């Protein structure tokens, strides 16, 4: 066991896989010699060679398109998109091609591609360094969509993603790269060394994609969330002293419906929290499924706490970000509504 932050855990996952499986390669802007703008691939080119860790032209569509071709030719590419905000030029190759290749060829061709990309706000990045576009991938049949909330999960899930024979979009909430963030920007930064999930095995291990994690048990209400908001939700629940069960779904697609439904049937209350814009966001899917499956157990409407339906701003970041106060208010309202 070692103490790792999320960057180190991700780096370790890739390092382990590069060493373990010859077919693993990395491609992305600035990922090679430099080691990535967030340092996630630091040292990997030096260690594993220039043919395994490739700097790429600035063309997300080309990165995804060529990585698909590599994957078809037996490699397991990990493509890094420098910011999730820049994934859209690659969207066509993801949606029209890699997501459907297995289906359209009746299983003859497929592409074990992992696309890693830092997402989310809270770093004063403005609209082009803060987005959370998971919903537009979760909607596409044939993709798996993952977002870890801590170093331990990050490494275990990234290894699973690389080993998966289907394409995985792997979102990394960059605000918690260095430490958990509870939504209060005025508090001093907390490093992962202070958190139990900062304990990460140095060797190979994997965590199953498609399995949610109950971060904290509780009887009064269920909070379904993922990424940075897991930590915000914990702090908010404490703030209002609610006996909340907090579920970190970890994987958006396929969604672990069972864990969520079991919890909500027990608590009778549910709120769904994410950073992305609420309207037609992934939270809607969670709500729609929960009301379907838990209708007769629900004692109050399910509430969503999300980013507002505006682009991500620069100056009003903490008004936009669904922070502790908004989550706490939602908890209170849902519990009072009963």
């Amino acid at each position, binding site marked *: 066991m070692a103490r790792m932050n999320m960057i180190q855990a991700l780096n370790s996952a890739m390092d382990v896989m590069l060493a373990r499986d010859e077919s693993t390669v990395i491609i992305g802007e600035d990922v090679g010699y430099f080691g990535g703008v967030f340092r996630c691939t630091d040292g990997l080119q030096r260690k594993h060679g220039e043919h395994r860790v490739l700097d790429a032209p600035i063309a997300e569509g080309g990165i995804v*398109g060529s990585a698909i071709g590599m994957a078809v030719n037996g*490699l397991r590419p990990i493509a890094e998109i420098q910011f999730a905000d820049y994934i859209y030029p690659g969207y066509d190759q993801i949606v029209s091609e890699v997501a459907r290749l297995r289906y359209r060829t009746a299983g003859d061709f497929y592409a074990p591609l992992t696309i890693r990309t830092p997402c989310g706000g809270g770093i004063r990045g403005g609209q082009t360094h803060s987005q959370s576009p998971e919903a537009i991938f979760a909607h596409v049949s044939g993709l798996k969509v993952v977002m870890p909330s801590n170093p331990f999960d990050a490494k275990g899930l990234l290894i699973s993603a690389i080993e998966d024979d289907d394409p995985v979009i792997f979102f990394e909430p960059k605000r918690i790269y260095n430490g958990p963030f509870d939504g209060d920007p005025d508090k001093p930064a907390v490093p992962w060394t202070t958190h139990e999930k900062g304990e990460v095995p140095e060797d190979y291990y994997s965590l199953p994609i498609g399995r949610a994690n109950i971060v904290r048990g509780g009887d009064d209400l269920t909070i379904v969330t993922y990424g940075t908001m897991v930590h915000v939700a914990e702090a908010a629940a404490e703030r209002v002293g609610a006996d909340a069960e907090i579920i970190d779904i970890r994987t958006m697609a*396929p969604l672990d419906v069972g864990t969520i439904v079991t919890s909500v049937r027990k608590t009778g209350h549910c709120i769904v929290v994410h950073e992305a814009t609420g309207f037609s966001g992934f939270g809607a899917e969670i709500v729609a499924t929960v009301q379907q499956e838990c209708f007769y157990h629900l004692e109050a409407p399910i509430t969503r706490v999300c980013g507002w339906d505006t682009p991500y701003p620069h100056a009003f970041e903490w008004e936009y970000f669904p922070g502790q106060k908004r989550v706490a208010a939602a908890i209170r309202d849902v519990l009072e509504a009963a």
Partner: protein
Amino acid sequence: MSGKPRLHVPQPPARPGEAPDFSYVEISEAGSVDRPDVNARARDIENLAYDMVRVLDEQHTALGPWHPHLEADELIVALRFMLLTRRFDDRMLRAQRQGKISFYVQCRGEEAVAVAQTLASDPGDMLFPSYRTQGAQIARGRSVVDLMCQCLSNSKDMCKGRQLPTMYHWKRGNIFSVSGNLATQYPQAVGWAMAAAIKGEDDIAQAWIGEGSTAEADFHHALTFAAVYNAPVILNVVNNQWAISTFQGYAGGERRPFSARGLGYGVASIRVDGNDFLAVYAVTKWAADRARQGFGPTLIEQVTYRAAAHSTSDDPARYRPKDEVQQWPLGDPIERLKSHLITEGVWSEEQHAALDAEIIEQIDEGWTEALSYGSMTHGPFLDKSELFEDVFADMPTHLILQREKLRRTREEEI
């Protein structure tokens, strides 16, 4: 040109009712273009992008440095593949008109491109075709029954009913899946070739798109990545003059040929008579050797003509002169190879007629067999639960539930 910036609106040389005019097509003399070594620097052979490599002259004689000197039986095999492609095409068109299949795309007039380029490849080379490259399947020995079953979406459809007719693939034959989205296969082919290079394998990749599709982002991505990593790949632009209703000027072909697009990236680029089997074969072989020996990618423009409609949904009489094909200066690829073989004294009209009759019979028998495996309207059918297979390697819970739900609804009386 005016002194004011007015929007330029590209105009095809002729519209319905007007006389066809192909004077814009720059054509070199057969045999006139030099053949450089395969390790030449792209910058030193830029003329190849502007000239037109041609081997067959007007008298059907093969000449010049690009003459590939193939054996007569090799050429007769090639002729057979081209003819088989055409007869297959004819039959599928008829099948669509008869309502047996939902859709079809002919490649009439472009048979030399796919057949010659496939024959110039090694079996381990991966081909990334477009919907008009059916000749590649034929030239790699695919049974026409398999292709027909795909068009029928029947119980033996390799795609299990998941793709439109003509969107074939052949895993064992190293032919990738045709995508309905134009040009997406281009960077994929480059990536495939990069992987071969990374693995130290000898195989190369080859991809085809139409000239209209060069406007898509994927064209640029493919050229950039191929150039940067010097990938062992052949990128083909089949310039058949039309993209549905728009002529090649709408892809930016009015001023410079599409082959010239490669030069700015430092990619070797060749323009070839796409209806001259020998020329297409020769340039492809050159490019394949170049790639295989580590000298990088080649962009090839095949100058040809889309002799049929865009697809069975299209009526070209609405936008181009009906008789354009007769005026096409580069003739018909099958006729030209046939005439060459006759000129060489290794083939005759009679042999050709006999071959054609044999092929037509083969196609008819194939079609009967294919129909026996069903169609979209007549069984045997694919199992309906196939709808949910192959979305993922392992079926996740939600799809198992949906499959069950569909089954129940189908059985219920409502």
